[in-house]
């Protein structure tokens, strides 16, 4: 999770949002190609701007592994067409790298800083405080909410209201990010005021959230976080997808948001108390003009009582990257199709780091050509460029490009072949030299940026690496001929990669290959696969508790276990035109008979899973298999039947969220593995009755269809099973269009005779 540096933090004041900005001063770019800007323009009028991506023209696919020189109209290479002017010395064998120095304080805080940070006159200072607690800790949504609270919760009793506000008063700004295993606070500040910054950080971190915080204050923050996550998806779906994949959040966004909305102030307080402790944290600082010794003294003097020496140094946690996900993850979406290839970023402390970096360059070539680009060019028949997204806080780079959905599966297959090509065709001299130069420059560019340097050294600290690995890797990359590629190639060829797709529809012939990622209005989720097992287990348990109430309310386990069908007579009224009376005989072995009466006409349908026939006035018309199955499924979703299936253990649910509607608590449950549609029940938790049923169907031709039915007037049938006698039906979240009144309901499976 990341936020704009100067996002307005006036959620709780009487002014909803206030800011003062340069009209055109600061520019953000879209994070991935072809997307709308992610940041909220209104917050500070930072006009979001598109980085230019050269549109790929059709051209014959290049077959060579090495990047060919660009052709010119005269047949000359670019080098000939644009001769380089003036010497600037050699490529610079002596590379000045700000060397990191490390100190462990008594309180267990690791302080890392360059012995003296370079910077232009008046350059700001930066610090990164990394707390070894991330998205994987605690209940879903808790780590993000705790970070949000730590920085932005505004209380009148605190100086500046919030940490952000207090820092702003001394000219400092803060940005918070929550990754899989760590939370990092990045602060930029006037270099001379680092002690005040440290004091403020310590004073806020030592004081976890008071659970008695006013409910509206906490809710505003919680809602703001959930709303922002939702907006990010809507505005920049590929960017949000990349973020989700790299942080391991394969659960549906709606679920994440729902989980955040379930978190309480008490949970956040407990979380902060348990995890926001100095022992085990890394504080990396870059303050031009200050020495590392100055900074260590400053930290020791400014950060008590957060640095509580009595707690002891403790053990520095070893933050190892979780195993990377592999496979194809697809989020159907209305919009251009974008593909992201995720490749692990080699860590500098691994034995063959330089070699792995070089091979990665051979693969990606900064998003233009490279073995991967050439493979894609071969598939689409023209030049293709990727946007290369650096790993940031994660362990994976992402290469993003627009592509036709038809090439996704071939691309996935091609990625394996490309990785395998390193075994059979190791980089040739020219490819190796080019890749080594690029890898070296990329690393040099990262350490030349204070934020990049802080990020690298913080990560290295958690991996127990000595800071000199940076310099060593750069030195090794400077001499490509001495790289041990033979040893690295087998490792690299086995690199786990993943592919994410936003837009389009996955091909029907590859259901086993593709995992669907769904959000908001998008189609169904295969919940069993997409939700982490631990979380799924918890939400199943909670759902079971509520469904047990429903089983009791609908007649008890024994009665429901015997409920294998029903006969129902329903009158449907739309307010326009005549009423329709429908008699349904349904048996859960997949047989259905319906008589539909409109005025003087009666249509009789006899249906099973292989199709059916409709008869009216002597005419017989076949019912298509799809239509037959659809009607069978709809009949099987009678609330009593759904609860009966649960009572027999034939289906499962998970809890999505709890809501309070008109003073009554309702649980929203989602069926797991119940078929191709997403089925959600809204259950009155007090009486256990199903109040609503929502079915989301994805139709390739018309998109998402949402049918919602609301139930009331429950009656007990034959002293056993309960069933609703009134319901309204609405389509696509509109107003109810049908009122349905049940005239008769027999809670017994119809006979074969009745079904003929």
């Amino acid at each position, binding site marked *: 999770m990341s936020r704009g540096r100067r996002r307005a933090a006036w959620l709780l004041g009487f*002014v*909803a949002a*206030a*800011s*003062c*900005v340069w*009209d*055109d001063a*600061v520019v953000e*770019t879209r994070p991935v190609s072809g997307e709308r800007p992610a940041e909220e323009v*209104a917050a500070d*009028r930072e006009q979001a*701007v598109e*980085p*230019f991506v*050269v549109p790929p*023209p*059709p*051209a014959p696919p290049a077959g060579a592994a090495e990047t060919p020189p*660009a052709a*010119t*109209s005269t047949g000359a290479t*670019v080098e000939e067409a*644009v001769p*380089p*002017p*003036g*010497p600037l*010395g*050699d*490529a*610079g*064998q002596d590379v*000045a*790298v*700000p060397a990191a120095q490390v100190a462990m304080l008594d309180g267990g805080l690791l302080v890392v800083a360059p*012995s*003296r940070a*370079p*910077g*232009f*006159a*008046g*350059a*700001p200072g930066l610090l990164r405080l990394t707390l070894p607690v991330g998205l994987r800790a605690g209940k879903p949504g808790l780590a993000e909410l705790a970070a949000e609270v730590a920085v932005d919760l505004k209380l009148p009793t605190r100086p500046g209201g919030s940490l952000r506000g207090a820092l702003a008063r*001394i*000219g400092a*700004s803060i940005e918070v990010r929550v990754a899989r295993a760590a939370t990092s606070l990045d602060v930029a500040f006037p270099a001379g005021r680092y002690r005040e910054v440290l004091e403020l950080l310590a004073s806020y971190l030592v004081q976890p959230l008071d659970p008695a915080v006013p409910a509206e204050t906490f809710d505003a923050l919680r809602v703001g976080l959930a709303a922002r996550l939702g907006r990010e998806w809507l505005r920049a779906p590929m960017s949000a997808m990349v973020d989700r994949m790299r942080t391991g959040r394969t659960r549906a966004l709606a679920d994440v948001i729902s989980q955040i909305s379930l978190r309480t102030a008490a949970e956040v307080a407990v979380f902060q108390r348990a995890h926001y402790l100095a022992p085990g944290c890394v504080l990396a600082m870059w303050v031009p003009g200050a020495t590392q010794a100055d900074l260590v003294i400053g930290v020791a003097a400014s950060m008590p009582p957060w640095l509580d020496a009595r707690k002891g140094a403790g053990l520095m946690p070893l933050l190892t990257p979780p195993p990377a996900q592999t496979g194809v993850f697809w989020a159907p979406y209305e919009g251009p199709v974008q593909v992201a290839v995720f490749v692990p970023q080699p860590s500098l402390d691994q034995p063959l780091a330089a070699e792995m970096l070089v091979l990665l360059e051979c693969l990606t070539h*900064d998003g*233009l*050509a490279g073995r991967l680009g050439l493979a894609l060019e071969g598939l689409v028949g023209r*030049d293709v460029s990727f946007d290369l997204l650096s790993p940031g806080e994660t362990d994976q780079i992402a290469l993003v490009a627009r592509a036709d959905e038809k090439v996704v599966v071939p691309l996935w297959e091609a990625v394996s072949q490309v990785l395998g090509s390193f075994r059979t065709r190791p980089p040739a001299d020219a490819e190796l030299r*080019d890749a080594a130069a*690029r890898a070296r*420059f*990329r690393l*040099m560019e990262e350490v*030349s940026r*204070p934020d990049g340097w802080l990020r690298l050294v913080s990560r290295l600290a958690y991996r127990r690496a000595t800071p000199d690995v940076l*310099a060593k890797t750069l030195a090794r990359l400077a001499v490509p001929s001495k790289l041990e590629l033979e040893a690295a190639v087998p490792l690299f060829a086995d690199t786990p990669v993943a592919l994410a797709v936003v837009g389009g529809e996955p091909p029907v012939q590859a259901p086993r290959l593709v995992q669907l990622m769904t959000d908001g209005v998008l189609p169904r989720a295969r919940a069993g696969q997409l939700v982490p097992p631990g979380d799924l287990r918890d939400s199943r348990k909670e759902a079971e508790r509520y469904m047990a109430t429903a089983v009791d309310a609908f007649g008890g386990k024994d009665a429901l276990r015997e409920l294998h069908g029903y006969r129902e007579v329903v009158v449907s009224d739309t307010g326009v035109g005549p009423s329709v009376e429908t008699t349904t005989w349904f048996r859960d072995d997949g047989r259905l008979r319906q008589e539909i009466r409109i005025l003087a006409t009666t249509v009789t349908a006899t249906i099973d899973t292989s199709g059916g026939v409709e008869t009216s006035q002597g005419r017989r018309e076949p019912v298509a298999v799809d239509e037959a199955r659809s009607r069978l499924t709809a009949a099987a979703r009678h609330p009593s039947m759904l609860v009966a299936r649960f009572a027999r253990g034939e289906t499962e649910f998970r809890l999505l969220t709890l809501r309070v509607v008109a003073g009554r608590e309702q649980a929203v449950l989602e069926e797991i593995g119940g078929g191709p549609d997403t089925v959600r029940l809204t259950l009155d938790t007090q009486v256990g009755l199903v109040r609503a049923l929502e079915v989301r169907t994805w139709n390739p031709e018309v998109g998402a269809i949402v049918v919602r039915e609301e139930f009331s007037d429950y009656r007990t049938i034959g002293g056993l099973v309960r069933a609703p006698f009134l319901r309204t039906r609405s389509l696509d979240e509109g107003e109810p269009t049908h009122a349905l009144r049940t005239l008769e309901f027999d809670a017994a499976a119809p006979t074969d005779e009745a079904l003929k």
Partner: protein
Amino acid sequence: MVVAAAASATAQQPAPRALTTPDGSRFVLLPVPGAPPVVSWLIVTPAGPAEDPDGLEGLALAVARASMAGTARVGSRNRATEEDLLARIEENERRRTLLRGAGQQVPEALINSLRSDASQADAVADRLAWERALRQVPALPSRLQRTDHTTLLQLSAPVAGLGRVAALLLARREEPILRGIHDELRGARAELLAVATEDPWTPLRDEIRSLAFGAHAAGRPSITEVEGFRPLSRALALEVFERTQRPERSLHVLTGGFDAEMVAAVLVQAFARSALSVDPFVPSPAPPAPRARTSRLTGGAVTGIAVACRVPVDLDPDAVMLAMTWLAGGDESFLSRRLFAHGMRVGQLRGTYPFGGLRDSALALVEVGADERDTRDGQRAERLFVEVDAALAAAAAEPPLPAELATARGLLAAQRAAQRSTPQGLCLYVALRCARFGMTPEQVLRSLETVDDAAVFRALQEMLEPERRVRVTQEKKS
């Protein structure tokens, strides 16, 4: 060999170096001793309404983007064929625009012909050639970004590759062919249209520009259609390219671990002459002098008011920015506190400076939106108008309290610290201020503490003079 740099870095930092190369290009060099030999290079060039021909809004941005798809020499596989195809595309695009303008159906044959020609033109071009050459330096991928009134081309390269990067930049500037310019224009306009459509304050801002700048190009409203009404010729596109990309209208900012003298020498050698600046540059006429005007809108998505003040040219931009931060920067700002004290519920408060894009006629804009929770019907905009007007008069009457200005300094300094915390951000920060206000690098980088309270008060008094204000109110229909 790799050496630790710690010892070599010193607290004594060299001053920024400003230079103008023989072709007229302006450079600011910000060397950082002890930093790795990496250079961040940003070029800011003008774009925006003041540069766009009537009916072709977005063209200045589009030509900058089109220039990234290779040059006349770099990126063509068959120059003669490509030129023929581009000429055919131009003619067909002209017909298409005229037909659309006349309200006629564009024939399918014409559309197919355009598709076919574009496809063939792509096939004989190598649009990635320039970018590929850049990466062979090796440099990181270039990024072309925009603000409301500029385009920004950003690169990172090794210091040793600076000369090669300079040559490529020159090739882009001097040999434009503007491949795909018609599609780029449509893309740029679609983007501008989306921004305008999504911002509920667009009608108020358009009206403010119209009141402040009249018939001047800067006073044009936001576009409402992707397709322009005027046919675009390549000659006109090249004219706009030359006008906006010519050396004296661009500003380059470079920072990193380099020796300023050495880099300056390379730049002077590389940027020696330009075909774009043979004719002297003729600036656009200035907009009319400011005078007080008021407009009332009804409908729209928000209830609120916008007040813009023409900022006198001689005011220190930092003093104006501090004044605006004190006035409208956050919930501790003067306006926020005052409106609250007067019982006004405010949904949004935003101060923007500079607004309007013109260097010598910049506006300071204050926007105040009614709180949507305030369900009192009727005259919410009018009440805001009265209260804000009185508040602005009060702001100009008494000097701000030192403590309040200290808070404003903190907020502004926090923004700037964040902006300047990366080499790329620093380049952007310096470039935009130097370009917009003609500030020297030293002025841009000075501490806000050097701007005294009296200068801030003077800025408030001068810019808030009633005859400099244009005001727009909008009452949302209930």
